[in-house]
Structures are given as structure tokens and as C-alpha cells.
């Protein structure tokens, strides 16, 4: 077990390194952005009244001060890290003085909820059906499902989402097509609100599942057909081991290993948000916040979202690496 502890230690060090480099790259890239938040604010402000250049210069100065953009680049960089380490992303520049944390905190539950659930459903469904399709190769239903998965997989997501929206929002209008919950419903944990949230999540989730299930399905099916040819499966079949047991403990269990890797990474990646989902279904979330922030040159907010994203993906990757020896005992930890 000390080998494992050493492994964990080395892996943790690597994790910290990756997070550090990642956040630094994000910092550099966002600060290389040609969009100046001050100019963005000024252009928003000057939509009224003609303003002399000297007045604008004055406004610019006071904004720089207000936003804390003064100081040398080194000082700014140090301030940035001080903030990160105290888990405070500072104020948003495009929604000054609202803290970045508040904005993210508002959007995150929606994104995390929708994407976690639909990623998980797509993963379970895709792997289950893909596993069955790989195992029962002759089943017509599963073959058909394979064709459907193949066809759904490459449809541009935007098109699929719009089609669903037109289908269930217009031609057969049974599902809400906008927002995260019914308007004018207090966001408290009442059964009514929860139901409304679920109801509003059906279409976005369906679109994500439909688009996501295909790749899991196809991946699992080919993994299973590889595993099927393995000696231990052939042998277990010859030995008359219960076929459900073979499917689950022999075939799926072995084929799932790479799929778990994929799951952890896509779960980590959900913090990027699903910009198009949010756009099409008017679903609240991090994606549009992020794009808005980029537009506005609000690098405080961009960095906040990217940092959270970097952290969560890193944790996901770390988790796989730490769990990998458990999933696949063949892998030596050293």
C-alpha cells in the first residue's frame, strides 16, 4: 500500500502542477485579449450624450482605479494569485461591483445539474445499449439502434436542438422551450418548483442525451466486440457461466474501463457549459456567462469560470488516475 501512497503523492504533485500551468495559461490568454473592459464600459456609457474626449479620459481613469487595474503587470499577477488562493475571484468588471463568485454561483447549479444528469444518463444508456448491441450481435432491434446512434451522432448539435424545439415546442407543444423554470415561480424547494425545473430540463437534457449517447454507444459496442474475443470470455461461455454474469462481470466490466475514463473527463468538462444548449433552450448557465464575459472583456469573470473549469477537469482526471488501479487491477501503480 505504500506504493500506492507514493503514487498518490506523485500524482497529487502533478495535479497541482497542471492546475498551476493551466491557470497561468488562462491568465496570459485572457490578458492578451484585445478587448479592454474599460473601453467596453465606456462605450456602453457613452450611448447617451456627446462627450468631449477629455471627459472620456477622466472617466477612463476613474474606471481603471475602480476596477483595480492599476499597478504593474507583476503586481496585478500577484494580486490575481492572492485572490485565487483565497477563493475570491474579485469583482466582475462588466457587472461591477458584483463579485464574480456571485455570478458563477448563480449559474453553476443550473449547468452542473443539467449537464451532470444528462451526461450520466447518456453514459449509462449508451454503454448499456452499446454493450448489449456488442454482445447480442444478431438482435435486429439493437442493430437498428446502432444505425440510429450512427446517424444521430454526427448531426450538428444546433440542428438537433432546434428540431427538438420545433417538434416539442411548436408542432406538438407539450414541453416548455425556454428558461430553467416557469416564470414567476419562486426559486425555493417546493414540489411545484422542482417539478417545473424537471419539466424545463426535459428538452435540453433530451438533446444532450441524444447527441451524447451515440458516441458512448458506438464506443462501447466496439469495445465489447473486442472483449468478446478475449480468452476469458470465450472460456466462461464454454464453461456455461450464466450469460448475464458473462455480460456484466466479464464483458461489460472489462470494456467499461476506458469508458469510465471518458466519463470522468466529460463530467469535468461540463463546467465549460453548453453554450448552444443555453442559447437554443434559453437555459440559464455558465456557458452564456462565459461567452458574455469574453465579449465584455471581463477577464475577472472569464478567469473565474476557466479556473473552476480547470480545477474540476483536473480533479476528474486525478480521480481517474487514482481510481484506475482499482478499475483495472492489471495497471501497476509504480
Amino acid at each position: 500500500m505504500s506504493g500506492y501512497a507514493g503514487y498518490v503523492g506523485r500524482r497529487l504533485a502533478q495535479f497541482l502542477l497542471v492546475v498551476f500551468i493551466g491557470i497561468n495559461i488562462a491568465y496570459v490568454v485572457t490578458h492578451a485579449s484585445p478587448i479592454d473592459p474599460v473601453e467596453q464600459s465606456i462605450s456602453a456609457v457613452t450611448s447617451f450624450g456627446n462627450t468631449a474626449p477629455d471627459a472620456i479620459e477622466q472617466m477612463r481613469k476613474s474606471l481603471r482605479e475602480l476596477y483595480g487595474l492599476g499597478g504593474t503587470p507583476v503586481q496585478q499577477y500577484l494580486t490575481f494569485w492572492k485572490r485565487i488562493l483565497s477563493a475570491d475571484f474579485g469583482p466582475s468588471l462588466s457587472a461591477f461591483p458584483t463579485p464574480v463568485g456571485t455570478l458563477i454561483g448563480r449559474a453553476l447549479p443550473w449547468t452542473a445539474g443539467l449537464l451532470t444528469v444528462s451526461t450520466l444518463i447518456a453514459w449509462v444508456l449508451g454503454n448499456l445499449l452499446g454493450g448489449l448491441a456488442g454482445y447480442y450481435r444478431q438482435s435486429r432491434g439493437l442493430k437498428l439502434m446502432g444505425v440510429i446512434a450512427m446517424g444521430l451522432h454526427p448531426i450538428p448539435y444546433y440542428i438537433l436542438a432546434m428540431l427538438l424545439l420545433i417538434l416539442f415546442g411548436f408542432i406538438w407543444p407539450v414541453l416548455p422551450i425556454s428558461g430553467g423554470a416557469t416564470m414567476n415561480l419562486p426559486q425555493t424547494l417546493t414540489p411545484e418548483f422542482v417539478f417545473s425545473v424537471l419539466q424545463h430540463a426535459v428538452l435540453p437534457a433530451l438533446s444532450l442525451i441524444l447527441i451524447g449517447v451515440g458516441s458512448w454507444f458506438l464506443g462501447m459496442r466496439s469495445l465489447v466486440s473486442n472483449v468478446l474475443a478475449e480468452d476469458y470470455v470465450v472460456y466462461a461461455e464454454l464453461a456455461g457461466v450464466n450469460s448475464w454474469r458473462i455480460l456484466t462481470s466479464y464483458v461489460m466490466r472489462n470494456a467499461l474501463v476506458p469508458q469510465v475514463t471518458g466519463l470522468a473527463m466529460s463530467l469535468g468538462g461540463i463546467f465549460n457549459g453548453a453554450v448552444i444548449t443555453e442559447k437554443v433552450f434559453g437555459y440559464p448557465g455558465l456557458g452564456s456567462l462565459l461567452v458574455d464575459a469574453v465579449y465584455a472583456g471581463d477577464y475577472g469573470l472569464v478567469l473565474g469560470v476557466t479556473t473552476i473549469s480547470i480545477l474540476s477537469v483536473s480533479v476528474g482526471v486525478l480521480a481517474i488516475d487514482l481510481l484506475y488501479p482499482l478499475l483495472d487491477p492489471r495497471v501497476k501503480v509504480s
Partner: protein
Amino acid sequence: MHASVEQPHGDQEAQPLLVVRDLQAYYRTSHAGVRRGIRAVDGVSFTVRRGEIYGLAGESSSGKTTLIKSIAGAIKPPLEIVGGSMEFAFLSGYGGLHRAARAELERIRWRHLSYIMQGSMNVLNPVRRVRSSFVDFAYPHIGGSLKQFEQLVVAHLARVKLDPSVLTAFPHELSGGMRQRAALALATICRPGFIIADEPTTALDVVVQKEVLGMIRGIQRETGSSVLFVTHDMGVHAHITDRLAIMYAGRLVEEAATAEIFRNPLHPYTKNLISSLPRIGEDAPRAGLAGAPPNLADPPSGCRFHPRCPLASEICCREVPVMREASSGHRVACFAVNGGDGA
């Protein structure tokens, strides 16, 4: 020598464990309406007696694997049993496992028929501990409490000189030899009457090979099982089998007691095999035989060996030789040996 637990002592000649009659197993494919058949096993007959180790030799793509697949009932399209029958002592009336009812199969497998595979070090599920393989394979047949079962497994492992600790190990944590022995224990834990062993020692180094062969022999003696032992390695056959059949291009060409075959090979192919016999453990190619094994999709007419046979005559191209007893218990299918009349 102990007899099978299930069967009363009896006349072994009268009640063989397995009788294969004129078995034909083809791979059938159909492309754009054109049906093709690959005659991997084409009219094979033999008998495995109780308590013996029956060897089956032949080079790659001679149809050995197809033959044992057919016997084991592991038939998946495009493989088809086209003709013939296989009668097991423990399963009557079906004419082969492939026709047996599902429930019947589940009852028989592992209890009466087990299997030691080629590369059997890879037969253990890599992501589960060794114990669960024993549970999956044998527990349904043995029953009782799990604790009792485990005691039984531990006892059985001792026979193959394995420590009980292997049960909690993952397969990859064991050495090749240990895995081989664990697989052997797994195949024999139910004391089956019939064991099919398909190249069980091929990938092993000489020392381990010898040890494993000894164990197979030991367990077979102890349980009185019959073993169908398939390998291309004539050295191994010499070491372990009681009787030996030589297969070529989907057909048996010669069958006799092992010692008899080595002493007095009759078929030109057998002769060639024996003369080019490598020493045990040496996996060298057999020299001295021109040409390649035939394409079974379009086999040569008559005796399938004739294109490579030094003794081939005109009749060999035309007609198929049948197995005839050349001396007591020594059957051979060759016009040059049996004389020129056809089937």
C-alpha cells in the same frame, strides 16, 4: 485407477465416453447469393474411451480447433454442423452438445465436460480476483455453503501445488505457471468425466510444461476422467496421451495407441511428423514436407494429402481413402497402406 464418479464400473469398450460418427462441420458463408462452405471438419469418426487421454495431433488449420469446438458445442454462425453425430455417455439422445437443450447444457458443462484452453493463462477474468472465477464457474454445479465450497477449492488447489492465497489475487499478480495451474484447477474442480484440452501447454517453457502435463495426468488418474488432448506438438503427445489420432485437412488419417504410432507410423503424413519430431519444448517448424496445407474452401479431390504425398498414385487423386484397421487398434486412411480399392 478410479472410475468416473457418475458412472458405474463397466466395460470400457462397450461404453465409451464419446463416440463421434462421421462429423462434418463447415463454415458456411453466403455472399451475394453465392454460398461457400469451408469444410473444416469433413467426416471424422473416433471414440474416446473412459479414463484415457486421447490425443489429437495435426498442424495449424488442420481442423483440430473446429473439431473440438464442435464437440464442445461452441457452434456459432457461420460454423455449422452439417452431418454426423457425437454421442456422450452423459448425454444421450441429442447427437451432440450443440443440439442439447439449454438447461441440459447448463447441467452438463463443467460438471461433466470441462475445457482447458489454448493460452489458458488468459482464461481468468483480469479484473476480478481468482476466487470469483471459481465461484462463477463451479459453484452453481457444486452448491452447498460458500464456505464449504471454498474449502473444496483450497483442497483442490493443493493438488496443483497452489497456495490458498491465490484466491484473493488478481490473475496478473500470478506468474504464468501459477495461472496455468489455477486454470487447470478451475477446469477440474468439478471432477468432470470429460476434459477437452486444447494446446494447454503451448506457450509454456519446458520446465513448466512438464510440470503441468504431470498435473493433468495426475488429476486425470485421480478422477478417472477422460481427456481429449489436442496439440500440434508430437513431443507432448508422446509424453502424455494414451491413444493418438492424426488429423490432416479436416480428416483423420491415422489412429492408434500412442506408443504404436511412434513406433510404427503408417500414413505418409504421420511418418513425416514423427521423423521431423522436435524435442520437447522446442517449437521448431517441421521440415521435410513440401507444399502448404490445402485451402479447405476448395480441398483437393480424393485423398486431401495427395498433392504433398510422396507415395501418391492415381487413385489418391480420385477417391477418398477410408479409415481401416491395419492392425489391432491401429486405423489408417491411405490407399498406399490399405490397398487400392476405394470407399
